[in-house]
C-alpha cells in the first residue's frame, strides 16, 4: 500500500505543477479592486457603470501622497445589462474587476426613477460581492459625476463617501442602508424604501466631495424613485423606524422663545402598532426618547427639574410635530407607505392584508395614524446654568 502511494503522489505532484495558479487563482495584484460603483441609466436606455478602481501602489499607507498620483482611477462602460458593462470594463481596463471590497454603490437619479430592481440582480448573483456595501442615491447629478469628485480628506473618495454614511450614526440624519437590507426592504410586503441621496451644494462645482452633501433621501414606490424628503424628515423617519442611535433636536427655549436650546437624543425607541377595529386599520406610533441637554443659550434659568420637564414636553412636541409633518407628507404628497405599516398589517392582520394587498398605498393614504412622543431628559452636561456676560 505504502509503496503504491509513491507513484500516485508523483503523478499528483506533476499534475499539480502543471495546474499551478490556474482556474480561480487570481493574484490580488492582477485584479482590479473596485472600491465604489456608480450606476446610471443613459439616454438610450443602456446602463452605464462607473468603477472606482484602487491603485494599490499609491494607496499604500507608507507612501508619500502625490508621489504616485491619485490612489484610484475611474472607468466607465455601458451595456444593456450590467454584466455587459462589466465585460466591457475588462475589455477597456485589461483587468478583472473584483467586487469583494466595494465600499459604496451610487445609484444615478435617472436609474432610480426608472426602477432600481435592475441593478440588484447582478450583485446578488455575483459570488464575491460585498453584501454589506452602503447604497446611496445621487440627486441632480449622475453617479459617474459624483465618483469623479476628489476627496481632500481620504485618498479614496469611496472611503470618504462610506465614512459620510458611517459617521451619520451620530447625527441621525442619514439612512445607513447596506445592500442586503435594501434587498430585504424591497422584498418586504407593504413597505416602501427610502435611500439617502447625495447632492451637490452648488450647481457648478462638483470637483470635490466637500461640495457634496447628504441633504435628501429618495422615496421609492415599487422600486421606483418618486420623490425626496429632507434631512429633518429623514430624522423623523428614522424615529418611526426605530433606527435612531443619536440625534439632535433644536427648539426654542420654552421660557424665552427667542433663545435656542439643543437636546441630544441618546436613545430613541419607537414602536409601531396597527389595530383593526370595525374593518378599519389604525396606526399608532410610540416614540420614547432618552435625552440630555446639549446646549442652552438661555442664561436666565438654571435647569431645575420643573424646567427640565418643560423642556421635555417642548422637545417631545417638536419631535411629534416633525413626525406628523412627515406622515402627512407621505400620505398626501407621495401616497406611499414608507413606515412599514403595511408590513405590520401583513404580519399581524394577515386576513385583512389579503383584502387590501393590491392597493395598500391607496388605503394607507386614508389611514389614521396617531403619534405619541415621550422624551425623558436624564442629564444636562457638566454645568447647571450657562455663564452670563455681565
Amino acid at each position, binding site marked *: 500500500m505504502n509503496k503504491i502511494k509513491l507513484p500516485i503522489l508523483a503523478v499528483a505532484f506533476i499534475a499539480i505543477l502543471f495546474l499551478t495558479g490556474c*482556474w*480561480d487563482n487570481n493574484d490580488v495584484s492582477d485584479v482590479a479592486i473596485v472600491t465604489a460603483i456608480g450606476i446610471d441609466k443613459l439616454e438610450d436606455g443602456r446602463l452605464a457603470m462607473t468603477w472606482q478602481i484602487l491603485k494599490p501602489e499609491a494607496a499604500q499607507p507608507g507612501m508619500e501622497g502625490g508621489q504616485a498620483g491619485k490612489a484610484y482611477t475611474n472607468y466607465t462602460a455601458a451595456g444593456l445589462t450590467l454584466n455587459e458593462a462589466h465585460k466591457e470594463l475588462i475589455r477597456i481596463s485589461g483587468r478583472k474587476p473584483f467586487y*469583494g471590497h466595494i465600499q459604496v454603490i451610487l445609484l444615478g437619479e435617472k436609474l432610480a426613477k426608472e426602477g432600481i430592481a435592475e441593478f440588484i440582480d447582478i450583485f*446578488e448573483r455575483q*459570488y*464575491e460581492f*460585498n*453584501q*454589506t456595501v452602503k447604497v446611496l442615491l445621487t440627486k441632480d447629478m449622475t453617479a459617474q459625476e459624483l465618483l469623479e469628485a476628489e476627496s481632500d480628506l481620504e485618498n479614496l473618495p469611496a472611503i470618504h463617501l462610506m465614512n459620510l454614511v458611517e459617521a451619520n450614526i451620530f447625527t441621525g440624519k442619514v439612512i445607513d442602508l447596506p445592500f*442586503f437590507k435594501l*434587498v*430585504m426592504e424591497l*422584498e*418586504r410586503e407593504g413597505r416602501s424604501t427610502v435611500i439617502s441621496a447625495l447632492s451637490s451644494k452648488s450647481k457648478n462645482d462638483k470637483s470635490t466631495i466637500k461640495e457634496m452633501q447628504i441633504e435628501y433621501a429618495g422615496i421609492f414606490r415599487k422600486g421606483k424613485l418618486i420623490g425626496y424628503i429632507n434631512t429633518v424628515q429623514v430624522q423623523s423617519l428614522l424615529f418611526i423606524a426605530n433606527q435612531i442611535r443619536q440625534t439632535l433636536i433644536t427648539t426654542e427655549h420654552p421660557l424665552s422663545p427667542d433663545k435656542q436650546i439643543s437636546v441630544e437624543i441618546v436613545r430613541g425607541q419607537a414602536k409601531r402598532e396597527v389595530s383593526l377595529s370595525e374593518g378599519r386599520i389604525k396606526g399608532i406610533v410610540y416614540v420614547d426618547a432618552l435625552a440630555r441637554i446639549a446646549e442652552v443659550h438661555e442664561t436666565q434659568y438654571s435647569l431645575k427639574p420643573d424646567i427640565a420637564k418643560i423642556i421635555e414636553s417642548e422637545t417631545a412636541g417638536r419631535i411629534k410635530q416633525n413626525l406628523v409633518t412627515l406622515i402627512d407628507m407621505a400620505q398626501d404628497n407621495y401616497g406611499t407607505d414608507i413606515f412599514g405599516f403595511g408590513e*405590520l398589517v*401583513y*404580519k*399581524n392582520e*394577515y386576513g385583512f*392584508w389579503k383584502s387590501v394587498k393590491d392597493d395598500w398605498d391607496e388605503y394607507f393614504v386614508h389611514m389614521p395614524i396617531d403619534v405619541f412622543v415621550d422624551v425623558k431628559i436624564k442629564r444636562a452636561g457638566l454645568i447647571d446654568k450657562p455663564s452670563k456676560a455681565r
Partner: protein
Amino acid sequence: MQKVRLSGIQLGMLFVGFLYGSSSLLNPAFSALQDGWLAFLIGWMLGIIIIAVYISIYLLNPSQTLIGILKSNFGRFLGTVIGILYAWYFLHLAAIVLRDFGEFSLLVILPNTPLPFIIGCFAALCVYSLKKGIEVTARTGELLIPLIPLASLIVTLGIARLIDFSNIKPVLANGIKPVLTTGFGVLSFPFGETVCFLMVFPLLRKRSTLRKTVFISTVIAGLLLLIIVVRDILALNPQLTQRAAFPAELASKLFPVINIYPLILLNLLIGGTIKVIVCLYASAAAITELSGLSDYKALLSSITGFSVTLSIWLYDNVMQMFEFAVSTYPYYALPFQIIIPVLLLIISIIRRTSERRKTS
C-alpha cells in the same frame, strides 16, 4: 486483525455530522417561508419516529446489517433485489451529496474550476479515509464534527443583530398544507437518510447504548438545525432565504466587518464528507455483503469512481438540482426511507412473536 468497533460517542458524532453537515447549508425547510420552523419541527418529530423505526428494526434483528435483515425477513430472492435497490440508493445519495459539494464550491468560491476536479478531490478524501477503515473515520469525526456547530454558531452570533422576531409572522399564512409538504421534505432530507446507518449499527461496541446514542444525536442535530432554520427566517427574512441558493453562505456574508464564509466552507467540508463517507460505506458494505465478498475496501474506490461520474451525470444544471431536491426527492426516497423499513418492522415483529410462541 481487530474487528472494527465503534464507541457510542463515535457513532453519535457520525450521526450528528450526517444529519447536520450538509443540511445546515441548504436549510431543508426554506420552502415553507416564515413557517419553516414549524415545518422543520414537524419533520423533526416525524424523523425521530422514523429513526425509532430503524432502531427497532435493528434491535429486532440484532448484529445484522440492513442486507442481512432484508434477506432474513423478505426471503433470499426478494431480499437480494431490495438490497440491490438499497445499494443503488446509497450510491445515489453519495452522488447527490458530492454534487451538492461541487456546486457549492463552484458557486461560492471556485467558479472557474472544473466540477469533476472538485468532486474528484472530495471523493479522493472520502476514499482515503474509508480505506483507513470506518473506525478511523469515526475517530477523525470525533475530532472534527464538534467544529461544525461551532462554525455555524459563530455565524449565527455574528448576524444576531439582524434578528427581527416579527419575521415569523404571519403564522400559517398559506394554510397548513405547504408546511406539511415541507415537513415531509424535512423528513426525507435529512432525517430519513439515516437509513444508511442500518449498515453501521452492527459496528457499535455496546448494543445496549444504541437507542440512547441515536436518540440523543437526533435531538442534538435537530436542535442545531432548528437554530439554523430559525436564524435564517429571523435574520435573513423568509423571502431571501427562499431565493438564496445557500442561505448559510449568505448569512456568513452579512457578518459585520469581515467576511467569514470560510467557516461555512469548513462546515460543508466536514459535514458533507461525513455524509458521503457514510453513504459510500453503506453502499460498499451492502454490495460486499450481497455478493458474499469479504472486504468492503476492495470495492470502495471503484464504487467511488462510479459515484463521481454518476454525480456529474446526475443533473444537467443547477436548476434541475434544486428542482429535484424539492419536488422529486421526497417521493423517490419514500420507499427506501419509510415504506420498506415500516414493512420490515412489521414483518420482524410478526416473526419475533411467532418465534416466541413456538418456543413457549
